């Protein structure tokens, strides 16, 4: 793949530059975007590095010309640089600076398109774990349809398996963002949007809403614990047997405009998550093709038919 070929030479350079910058400020691990632990975040990081390198080239060229011009052509007495008040065109130069940015941007554009398409599909090899996410007013509700359990403001996921988040909102818009796993996606009322992420390392990460949704929204931070598959299964069945169930009454309590800590529920009412989704994404192709066999619960309809 084209992207692979670009990778080697610039990586060392960029990493070195970033490393110098980060080490000088101490705790580099806190630059979460630069320390992804899964394939999605890694791919995104590689593109950032590529773009940063291309832009660094532009910046170096422009700055060199700029400083040269500013220093050489000052209006000081005795400046012997040539003064050409009517020089106003040069065909080759002008062609050059249309071509140069265009070329650099092409270098960025091709992998951008490739990765954009690539990340829109859950990898075919493994069945993903599905988590239905509903943003409520200043809290996150996570429902595990496969495990029949639900949590609030806390995620536990298996490592080395893609996790497919289905996102909706019973609140103003939010975005689900777990920076070390990868990029974010909006939760919107009356829509179900997909996002897949994966953790390849066990550990505890943090997630957040990146879209402002009211006075309590800064309390929407939550912990994400990534554990091996068998630990995940054990955790899920433990929650299923020991926690209290979420009834409709509990769900309605969650809808109140307030904040809360973490909570675990042994089961949840099925109709709290939309069964018919409409959306720009969910028409036909995309990540759901791989999902049909496994889930078959949500019926995805093209927008024109749903309203």
């Amino acid at each position, binding site marked *: 793949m084209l992207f692979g070929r670009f990778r080697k030479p610039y990586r060392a350079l960029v990493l070195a530059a970033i490393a110098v910058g980060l080490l000088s400020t101490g705790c580099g691990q806190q630059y979460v*975007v630069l320390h992804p632990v899964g394939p999605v975040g890694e791919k995104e990081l590689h593109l950032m590095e590529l773009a940063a390198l291309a832009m660094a080239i532009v910046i170096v060229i422009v700055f060199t010309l700029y400083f040269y*011009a500013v220093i050489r052509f000052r209006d000081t007495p005795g400046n012997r640089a040539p003064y050409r008040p009517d020089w106003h065109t040069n065909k080759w130069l002008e062609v050059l600076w249309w071509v140069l940015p265009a070329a650099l941007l092409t270098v960025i554009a091709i992998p951008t398109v490739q990765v954009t398409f690539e990340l829109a599909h859950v990898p075919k090899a493994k069945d993903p774990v599905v988590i239905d996410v509903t943003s409520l007013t200043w809290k996150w509700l996570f429902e595990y349809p496969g495990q029949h359990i639900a949590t609030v403001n806390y995620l536990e996921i298996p490592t080395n398996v893609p996790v497919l988040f289905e996102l909706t*909102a019973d609140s103003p818009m939010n975005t689900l963002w777990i920076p070390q796993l990868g990029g974010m996606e909006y939760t919107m009322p*009356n829509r179900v949007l997909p996002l897949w992420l994966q953790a390849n390392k066990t550990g505890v990460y943090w997630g957040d809403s990146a879209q402002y949704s009211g006075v309590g929204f800064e309390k929407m931070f939550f912990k994400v614990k990534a554990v091996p598959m068998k630990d995940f299964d054990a955790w899920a069945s433990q929650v299923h047997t020991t926690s209290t169930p979420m009834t409709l009454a509990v769900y309605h309590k969650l809808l109140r405009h307030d904040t809360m800590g973490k909570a675990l529920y042994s089961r949840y009412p099925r109709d709290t998550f939309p069964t018919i989704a409409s959306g720009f994404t969910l028409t036909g192709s995309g990540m759901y093709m791989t999902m049909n066999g496994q889930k078959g619960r949500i019926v995805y309809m093209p927008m024109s038919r749903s309203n």
Partner: protein
Amino acid sequence: MPSFLPYLYHTLFPPTVRYPDILLIDFGLIMAGIGLLGFMTKTRRWGWLWREWLTTVDHKKIAVMYLIAAIVMLFRGGIDAEMLRAQLALPTTKFMPAAQYDEVFTTHGTIMIFFMAMPFIFALFNAVVPLMIGARDVAFPRINAMSYWLFAFGAILFNISFVIGGSPNAGWTAYPPYTGLAFNPGPGENYYFLALIIAGMGTTMTGVNFLVTTVRMRAPGMTLMRMPMFVWSTMITSALILFAFPPLTVALAMSLFDRLFGSSFFTLTRGGMPMMYVNLFWLFGHPEVYILVIPLFGVFSEVVSTFSKKQLFGYPVMVVSMLAIMFLSYGTWVHHFFTMGAGPAVNAFFGLSTMLIAIPTGVKIFNWIFTMWGGRIQLTVAMLYQLAFIPTFVIGGASGVMLAVVPADYQFHNSYFLIAHFHNVIIGGTLFGLLSGLYYWWPKMFGMKLNERQGKVAFWLFFIGFWITFTPQYLLGLKGMTRRLYTYPIGMGWHELNVISTFGALIMGAAFVALVYNIVWSLLYGEKDLTGDPWNGRTLEWALPSPVPEYNFARIPVVHERDAWWAMKQRGQSLADLKPEDVRDVEMPRNTPIPFLLGASFFVVGFGMTFKFWPIAIMGFVGVILCILFSGFDYEDHHHLKADVIRSTEASLGRLQG
């Protein structure tokens, strides 16, 4: 006591407008208001205010009024910014409650974009465009005044919200369904929608006006390809405004309907489609960011060639690239919400279109550098802002390209990286450009120069303050800090960078103080501009005396080439060689109170609708209708300025021969 009084009190003055700091400001405002009233009455200035300013249709005076409004709004928006930075300095700071923080970031963004940058740009349009093209006024002087008063009353409506009723709190983008009644019951969002609709009407009219002015009112001989670059940028900006503001108005009106009349365009319940709003908003929003920067591309083009004493390099390329930006900027709006699940094909398309628009934007940078190349660069304050702009804008553009990389944007979106990007382009491009234009054209507007030494102090404070404030924000984005957070947990490692950023904001605050000091000092003691051409300029406005007489040109000049005034000077010509018989009677627009009254009526409509006081809204609406009717049937809209008057004015300026 009538029973509705407590109700009125609670509606107009809910607890959210009774924070201690707001009460203090209320007190200050009342005292200042009383002082001003007293002063105006004592010095008998009311008649003067009414005749010379409130009813004027002269583009040069409208420019001054826009400028005053813009600087006042820069102050208000700046105070908001300082408050935000104070709150964010440390994770433990309790500078203000969360609800107030939300209001402050909303008013900060809205004011800076709609009530600071836009009027400042229109101040420059009004101040120089008619002069540059050799015209006596804009195409529709009365509409020009209406635009101003719609803007001004929109701004007043928006600004009283924090004193009466409570400020909007949904961000400058006002995404539903958060703006819906279910989440936002107060009057704040009504203020936002109504103020922007009213000011937006004014803006749209300004767009029409300057489009027609630049197309139709140019002096004989000034072909399109001989127009100064600032005039090109005005024309292109006006066209952008014309097509960008309608979607905004529609989006705002639909949101308002949801709130006032129970419709469900964007609500959470009953099948509302919030994403439709987001599309409409950014269909306006992306062209808007270019509306905010293209005029300044024009300013920089004028400034760089004047202070390099050299022709603009690659004029045709500049024009082509601006036209390219104009068309392309309608095709990139989805990059503001790549993460709303539009699917890979749509996202890839808009990622590519966004990268495409970066090319013509980048090309201009080379043109400015090569304008300096082979020139003689004079480091005036106006030129310093231009020199600061180039590197700042290049870095802002580079981070913009990083945001256009779709998968990367999944990580950057709504983080402080995004915040740093757009401040990088908006401060580096728009604000620096506005200040450059201010220092450049100040002598033309007011007849004296702004003190250069003080100006340099303000410049360095702005420039250094800017980088100290916003460099840490790029890093904060990489550390996962998201925008519009009122406070953040300890232990994320965000506080060092936030402290630095807050420190930078203080420096920018000092820069603003230095700027105002510079302006006031120069108004009192500034060096008078007696020549009318203090910078050895190149375009026609410098052929006129400063300040410019009411009728601008006693005789309309004939243009033979680009940089018309420069060429005239090369040939030893000037416009000060008028013969008495050259001067004819001039038809000038007549002052009128209608624009002011129209704006005031719209204010009443807006205020009434904000609080659902329907009788008041209807009264205002009747006022609007009356103003329009009177204006339509007012045939006495111009008067003749006698040739004798012009002759004696010109003679007193020493510009008349024989």
